[in-house]
């Protein structure tokens, strides 16, 4: 640290050294919390009321096509169209796909990305892997393997899952169920896939990106730079879309 940096450090500390938040800080935080819950409560009530009105209309339609269009274990949805019924049905029973961990509405963590986040992201249907062209992994000295953050935006009312594919399974894992920010990860810490079930539209969230549910996790790699192959499914029974995520400074094909 040079003289300028020392003076700067001292100036910053002296400037705010005696500063304290007000004594009613936590009271204000709780008041904020209550206000937010009230807003969410009103929105939830509106959604519930809408579903209550729609279900009686949907049941006859579902009975008419029983056994033909709904997947095993799914619930009938509120819409009369096949497409929207399928979407609601998968949404009603959020389950982790085999080999994945589940991230649902209650797991969302909001945050804000750079204004041009879309240009540096991987986009498949409702799924956005944020700022991963390229993704960067770092170690803070305590982790056996490099790891990085991975922000994910998923359009509301969506069900999508992503799995590590090909050779990347030997050296790449997601850190969603296990991401604990303590900076110590191995491949055994992570997961080979993640299932995302986003919030219902208007249910909660969307502060920064209305219409999206935000998830915040990470990844761990045993090899960097690398071109990590991922398979993304946007609907049950469908074929996966293959994408390639560059980790570190390396040119990779997009798909």
């Amino acid at each position, binding site marked *: *640290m*040079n003289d*300028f*940096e020392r*003076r*700067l*450090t*001292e*100036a*910053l*500390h*002296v*400037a*705010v*050294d*005696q*500063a*304290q*938040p*007000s004594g009613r*800080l*936590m009271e*204000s*935080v709780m008041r*904020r*919390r209550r206000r*937010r819950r009230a807003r969410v409560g009103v929105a939830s009530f509106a959604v519930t009321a809408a579903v209550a009105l729609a279900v009686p209309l949907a049941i006859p339609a579902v009975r008419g096509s029983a056994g033909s269009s709904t997947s095993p274990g799914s619930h009938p949805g509120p819409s009369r169209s096949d497409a929207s019924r399928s979407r609601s049905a998968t949404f009603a029973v959020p389950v982790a796909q085999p080999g994945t961990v589940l991230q649902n509405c*209650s*797991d969302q*963590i*909001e*945050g*804000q*990305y*750079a204004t041009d986040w879309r240009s540096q992201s991987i986009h498949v249907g409702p799924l956005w892997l*944020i*700022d991963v062209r390229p993704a*960067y992994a*770092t*170690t*803070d000295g305590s982790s056996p393997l490099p790891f*990085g*953050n991975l*922000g994910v935006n998923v359009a509301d009312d969506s069900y999508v899952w992503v799995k590590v594919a090909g050779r990347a399974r030997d050296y790449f894992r997601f850190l969603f*169920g*296990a*991401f*604990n*920010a*303590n900076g110590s990860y191995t491949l055994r810490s992570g997961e080979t896939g993640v299932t995302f079930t986003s919030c219902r539209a208007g249910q909660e969230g969307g502060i*920064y990106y209305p219409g999206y549910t935000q998830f915040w996790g990470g990844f761990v790699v045993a090899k960097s730079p690398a071109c990590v192959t991922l398979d993304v499914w946007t609907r049950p029974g469908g074929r996966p879309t293959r994408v390639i995520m560059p980790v570190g400074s390396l040119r990779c094909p997009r798909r």
Partner: protein
Amino acid sequence: MQARSAGLFRTALLLTGQDAAEAEDLLQLCLERAYRHWGRITRQGGEPERYARRILVNAANDRWRRLKRRPERSLDVADTASSVPDRAGEVADRDALTRALADLPQRQRLVIVLRYFDDMEMAEIAVALGCSIGTVRSHLSRGLSAMRQAIGEEAPEPREGARS
């Protein structure tokens, strides 16, 4: 988390150009969001402070976007500094430095505060801001250079970069 609120508040003060009301608002927002996701953070054995810091940084970015079309008020640090007995020259130097900090673009200011006030490593800052270490170094270097220029100080002879 409540115990760490004073430290977060001081960071918020520096990020907002020492606007106490704005800093407290940022802190409230930060703690409310941390509280909302408390279950997930703690059940994974995580470090709530790291999440809270990211929330704080994001909230500061939001605020800056709201304000960027109108100039922020000039920083007046004389009141806070005057309570510390010191020589006039040093007080003036600190005053100039904190004013120069307040005039920096938001991203550079964030990096400098996290580096020199919160004493975070480059890798930690990169994680908090969601960018690469190279980007952090770039913001840091440009920010320091702009501050030197603002207070009329020449850049030092080329040497090893800022500590990492």
